[in-house]
């Protein structure tokens, strides 16, 4: 009886937390493979490297849960990032105090991210453009705007702007603080707000959501608003981390973000996904890239391994969820055997 209880708890854990087990397994393997892996400096490195795409991944998670996606994230990072850098430099040149310039530039980055995503939402909800196409259009437009604004040249000499991406508070790097805060906000939003419940319902069955009185259009706007804030923050962090305004930076970041979300168990058919899963998905990719760099794996081999692991992680996840039936059946047969 007692054993059966433990057994079923283990099964529940495996179904729900399979992706975290993959992560833990990978963590153990990596620690074994290279002694440098487990250093605080290295773990902090990984987290810092992951922070930008993970922040994007939280936005993508919410959109995918709602049956949408954002292909424009990488380009909008470039646009909001260079505009943030430009407004910082402009403010400093106009002898605004540094803290004021920082706030102004951060606001400019976020505002740009939000503006682009409101246009995304408008195309999708008001004009019924499929999200794939709408955000693809925005991808091209935002990239063009970033290049146009900078004439294709990198913005340099960022001065104190680098605190966003390179600074730290109580020896925790700022990008990690942003990532953790955004994780908590995303988790809370999905778990504890009306908006969270609504977005799951919309992605799960939009017509049923409408019939339950949910204002679907408004919820979709909110999802893109959320995504826009995240993309804007990511833009500021990215430019600050690389200490340059790169109009052609962050290309394909949306795909890294989508990868993290999908590995983390977000379902492209909508209605399923969690913030914690996405975080785990991002770290699975991060651990892998890191251990391969630490152990000096050839670049080309790295690409093959990365692809294979993505496939394997998802296959394992599906397999672990599928096993729940057979597993619990065995449990019940045991019980019968005892009573009979």
């Amino acid at each position, binding site marked *: 009886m007692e054993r059966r209880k433990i057994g079923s708890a283990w099964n529940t854990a495996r179904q729900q937390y399979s992706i975290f087990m993959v992560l833990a397994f990978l963590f153990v393997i990596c620690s074994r493979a*290279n002694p*440098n892996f487990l*250093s605080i*400096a*290295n773990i902090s*490195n990984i987290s*810092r*490297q992951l922070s930008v795409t993970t922040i994007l991944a939280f936005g993508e998670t919410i959109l995918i849960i709602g049956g949408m996606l954002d292909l424009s994230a990488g380009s909008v990072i470039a646009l909001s990032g260079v505009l943030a850098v430009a407004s910082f430099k402009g403010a400093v040149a106009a002898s605004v105090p540094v803290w004021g310039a920082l706030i102004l530039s951060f606001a400019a980055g976020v505002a740009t991210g939000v503006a682009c995503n409101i*246009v995304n939402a*408008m*195309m999708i909800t*008001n*004009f019924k453009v499929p999200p794939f196409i709408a955000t693809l259009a925005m991808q091209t*437009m935002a*990239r063009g705007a970033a*290049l146009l604004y900078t*004439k*294709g*040249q*990198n913005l*340099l*000499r960022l001065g104190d702007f680098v605190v966003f991406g390179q600074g730290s508070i109580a020896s925790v790097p700022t990008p990690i603080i942003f990532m953790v805060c955004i994780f908590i906000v995303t988790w809370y939003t999905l778990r504890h707000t009306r908006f969270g419940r609504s977005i799951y319902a919309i992605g799960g069955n939009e017509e049923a959501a409408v019939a339950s009185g949910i204002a679907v*259009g408004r919820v979709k706007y909110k999802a893109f608003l959320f995504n826009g804030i995240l993309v804007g923050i990511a833009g500021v962090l*990215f430019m600050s*981390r*690389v*200490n*340059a305004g*790169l*109009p*052609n*930076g*962050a290309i394909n970041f949306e795909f890294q973000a989508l990868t993290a979300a999908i590995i983390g168990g977000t379902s492209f058919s909508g209605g399923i996904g969690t913030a914690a899963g996405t975080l785990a998905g991002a770290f699975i990719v991060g651990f892998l*890239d*890191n251990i391969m*760099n*630490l*152990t*000096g794996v050839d*670049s080309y081999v790295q690409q093959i391994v990365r692809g294979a692991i993505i496939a394997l992680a998802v296959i394992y996840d599906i397999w672990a969820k599928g096993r729940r039936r057979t597993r619990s059946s065995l449990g019940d047969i045991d019980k019968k055997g005892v009573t009979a």
Partner: protein
Amino acid sequence: MKTHAPKFLALFLAAVLALTLAAGGKAEAAQYRVAYIARAQADSFAAWLANAIKAEAGKYPDIELSVFDGEANDEKENGMIENAITNKFDCIIVQPNNGEAQRPYVENVVKAGIIAITTNARIDGIPGSSSVDADPYMQAKVNCDLALTQIPQNAKVVVLNGPPGNFHADERRRAWQIEFFDKRPDVEIVGEQIAHWNKDEAMTFMEDWVQSQSQIDAIVSMNDNMCAGALEVVKGNPKFDKLFAYGVDGTAEAVLLIKEGRMTATCMQSAYDLAELLLSSTDKLLTGAEKEINTDIGNPLITKDNVEDFVKILEAAGAL
């Protein structure tokens, strides 16, 4: 908001279109029409070159320059060359995305009796075409010559490569192999990765190397962008005070890093020099002063000793 949204969006898109079209539409009657087909406006050197060529063309009143963007796409670039032939430009300057892919199209330019110039990088061996370029092998070699005297015995170095298959990336790496690593078997490469010319990717690799390697004496980078990324990681870290760092391009960022003493050297691939030489060659070809020109700009090495000269050049050009 809901009811105004459609109007707002339509207006926004229309405004974007109108602005873009207005910016592109100007008509002048010049003697010679020249097409410059850039590899990709999104590539920062290519964009710099395009800007420089536009500025330089302004000095030639009889030349009217149109710039096209190949968007790093062979098919697009080839299509643009064909269009330029059809539109009967007097001279077509091609900055190839991939030399071999554009070769037959440049041959068609020559066949159509139009002056063809290839640049950055040149396409060799097309009779009747001209070329103006910087030699990527030489750009790396001038760095190698310096590194031979600087990098200590049994040093550990990390190497950052550009995209595989890219002519400049491959030639620069080849030069480092022949002109440095083959001559210095004592030096060990402890990390080598492809960072696709990108600053952020180079940062990630360098961060991991700093973790895994107890000693790194030098960064060998195929361009300045990646070199700057790697240096960003070790900024302010006293362990890397004596780190040597070599790049290519002479970007504003690299020049500043050399001035600060954080970067060792780079080879200037000056878009201004290239643009100047391109336009003067174009002029000579158009006026019939010469039939075929194949020339290179110089490969000046920038180090702490001469960096001030380059700071002045960049400042004069408004890049700093």
